[in-house]
């Protein structure tokens, strides 16, 4: 084989996997945050929040399932939602590093959720015009859920930030801790440009500016400061995760991996 044909073969592979990676990135954001929220079931501060957190988790899980199914169809290798959710290793996950961060206290859980919601609303809104009709349909449905999630998480951020001294201090600490992981939301897996150019995925820039406007406005209402440190920990979209994802996957995947194909 000549070097030239070798290069051509690699290029083709890159084009083929880009749409799959993009859909996996969206699906992984949802699955990982669903798992994190699921950890709080029966451990929330009160019964109402326990139920609310479980329901938000369920919305994310539902979105993840549809997206995995679609990713499997595009990939065409016969992998289903279980294979993709439970059969891939840490380095194969394309979620933003934000969603794998631990729950921490209630403020940290709510701030993480708020950052994700503020991103998902404009992202899904734009994705609902995707040239991939299945993705457009999933997004049109998901954006309604994301809007409701954003209403809830932003009202919690305001209530906590503009609450007692203790709640203010804890919520500011959560913002300071999580801010460096928000930039990763707007990153794309390798080959992202080709997916945007083909109209499958929306351009990241307008979504990032809507995210920024939402975050600044809600944090201002909440009397919270936007961190000035420009450092952003990126890499989730290409599989370079923080230490937390591996532990989460171990707990989430062990049953499926120990008993492949197990049924209730």
């Amino acid at each position, binding site marked *: 084989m000549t070097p030239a044909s070798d290069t051509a073969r690699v290029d083709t592979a890159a084009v083929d996997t880009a749409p799959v990676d993009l859909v996996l990135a969206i699906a992984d954001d949802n699955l990982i945050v669903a798992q994190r929220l699921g950890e709080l079931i029966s451990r929330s501060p009160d019964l*109402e*929040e326990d*139920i*609310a957190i*479980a*329901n*938000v988790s*369920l*919305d*994310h*899980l*539902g*979105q993840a*399932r*549809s997206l995995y199914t679609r990713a499997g169809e595009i990939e065409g290798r016969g992998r289903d939602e279980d294979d993709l959710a439970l059969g891939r290793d840490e380095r194969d996950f394309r979620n933003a590093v934000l969603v794998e961060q631990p729950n921490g206290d209630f403020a940290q859980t709510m701030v993480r959720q708020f950052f994700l919601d503020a991103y998902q609303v404009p992202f899904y809104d734009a994705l609902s015009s995707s040239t991939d*009709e*299945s993705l*457009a*349909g*999933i997004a*049109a*449905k*998901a954006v*309604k*859920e994301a809007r*409701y999630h954003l*209403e*809830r998480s932003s009202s919690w951020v305001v209530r906590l930030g503009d609450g007692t001294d203790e709640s203010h201090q804890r919520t500011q600490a959560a913002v300071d801790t999580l801010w460096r992981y928000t930039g990763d939301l707007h990153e794309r897996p390798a080959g992202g440009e080709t997916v945007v150019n083909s109209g499958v995925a929306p351009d990241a820039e307008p979504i990032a500016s809507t995210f920024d406007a939402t975050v600044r406005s809600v944090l201002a209402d909440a009397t919270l400061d936007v961190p000035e440190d420009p450092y952003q920990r990126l890499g989730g979209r290409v599989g370079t995760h923080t230490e937390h994802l591996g532990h989460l996957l171990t707990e989430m995947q062990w049953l499926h991996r120990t008993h492949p194909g197990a049924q209730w």
Partner: protein
Amino acid sequence: MIRPVVDLGELERGLGEIPDPEVPVLTIADLGVLRSVADEGGRIVVTITPTYSGCPAMHHIENRIAEVLDAAEVEGEVRVTFSPAWTTDWISADGRRKLREYGIAPPRTTEVALTIGRRQIACPQCGSTDTETISEFGSTACKALMRCLECREPFDHFKEL
């Protein structure tokens, strides 16, 4: 091969009577979950759409539809579609009445909800609009938990979506 003639209208009525497992006063026809029943070259295709992406009732509803098709000796399949996205505006007038009688404040039209916001939900017990939200999520994803400040009764509100 001669296949039996299927009365699609009758089949659709029968399928439409399947109750929603989480809000059993409503049928899947009341909810607008049942989208269509069509004959595609001798194969009956029943199309349904979930209320929420993660609605855990969908699998149950699919099984019930398969049972109804089996009972009618009809060869068919269930298709789940996300598009167009389900909206509470598809809940029938009869469905809204049944919800109120059951003690769940029915959704207003999404247009009204967008204009005047999420507040001002009438208590299904006493009709007062002096109510407050306890939690954005009630016993299921589609409901919020509210309290009437007039009669003090807590109640579920079927959220506009």
